[in-house]
């Protein structure tokens, strides 16, 4: 059971090592309550997130994908998240076009100190995905 009250869904999160992963850690250390649907994959930088990672996840079983990196101007590698921003915006619009609700995909910026914000992002995004329900039909979900 997910904390949102229905069956747990599969949400994949790509988090940059330097900010958002730290932010998630801060939230954990602070014992902020979060829904448990999210599976985190740590990446060096949001610029490492190939838009195709998101596509692959959504096509092979994920119900939602969240990407989070350092705030613009704060990238550990100076400019990785600037590239990410362009790519992910392009992807967001493409997913909608091919018939995947744009609400299933979200990208945002969370710094290592923003534990509270992280809690908010995860909770709100999980809620949003739960409102849409599973992306894949039930038969596939069973296994």
């Amino acid at each position, binding site marked *: 059971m997910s904390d949102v009250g229905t069956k747990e869904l599969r949400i994949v999160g790509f988090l940059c090592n330097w900010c958002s992963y730290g932010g998630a850690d801060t939230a954990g250390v602070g014992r902020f309550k979060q829904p448990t649907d999210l599976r985190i994959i740590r990446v060096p930088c949001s610029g490492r997130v190939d*838009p*195709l990672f998101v*596509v*692959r996840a959504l*096509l*092979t079983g994920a119900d939602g994908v969240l990407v989070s990196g350092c705030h*613009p*101007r704060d990238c550990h590698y100076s*400019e990785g998240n*600037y*590239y990410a*921003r*362009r*790519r992910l*915006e*392009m*992807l*967001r*619009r*493409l997913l*909608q*076009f*091919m*018939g*995947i*609700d744009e609400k299933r995909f*979200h*990208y*945002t*910026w969370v710094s290592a100190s923003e534990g509270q914000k992280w809690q908010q*992002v995860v909770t*709100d*995004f999980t809620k*949003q995905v739960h409102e849409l329900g599973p992306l894949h039909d039930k038969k596939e979900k069973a296994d």
Partner: protein
Amino acid sequence: MSTEKLKEIILKVLPDVDTVIGWQEGFDKIHITPFFMKSPEDAEKAVWNSLCVQNLAAYLPSLKKKTAVIVKGCDSRTIVQYMQEGLIDRSNVVIIGIPCTGVVSVKKVLKAVDYQPIEDVKFSDEKIIIKTSKGEKTLAIADVCPDKCKTCQYPTPIVYDHLAGDPIESTKPAESVYEDIKEFEKKSLEERRDYFKNEFDKCIRCYACRNACPMCVCQDSCIAETRDPHWITQKLSSEEKMMFHMIHAVHLAGRCVECGECERVCPMDIPVAKLKKKINSEMKELFDYVPGVNPEDKPPMYTFNVEEAKIKEHKL
């Protein structure tokens, strides 16, 4: 523009290059085939008419010797994009430009004559006259042109060394280019999802779309086929087919020059160019960028602005 004028230019260029890439008659009267000319005798067989559909510029990155290539307006965008990305040595390429008023979609012509074998083809005044065993049929070229010609903005090549004919201006409104995309977006989310699933389910993974695409420069190292990384399996499921077409589309983000080759070559008639055109419409909207127009430009995914004027942070 006459074939004679074109032959004259080919003969003039031929001594300085290894090959001139043009067109010649194919296995039947409706099919024209790419033609690698090496000698003046070859040049005699060159043709130019509305059936010369192939984008010949796509051969350039794989050729090492100095080559001349014949391009229509749309094909020239391929060369501009190659120049932007440093994929060709411009000094090694001689461009013979042809102002073009529109080509013919062979698929549409065949459909119009019920797929009867074509015995003869004649052109007269913006019309194409098709002879089959069932008789003659006259079609307006405007009615059987590929969709790209209906909104063509660049009838005259953007770059060329020789121009075979007088430059022509586009008569099509610039706003019309992405109208089909806007129209498609009026469908519901489910309709769009079903549409793409049904279309891509026809895919046989022959990779003709990829191999014909001038901007698919990875070719033999395409991640659709590598085992490591293992992006997609060899399975034939809807997901794998969809994934392949997403790879193609996303790798062309901000680079697709809309030559329509992917769609033209598909033996299963899948509208493979649609996803790419959608991305292009977004590139125009977000970054006011049109691929393959200015050699000095940088593809939008290769660069950034610290403040993006049109990208707003999304709220949950």
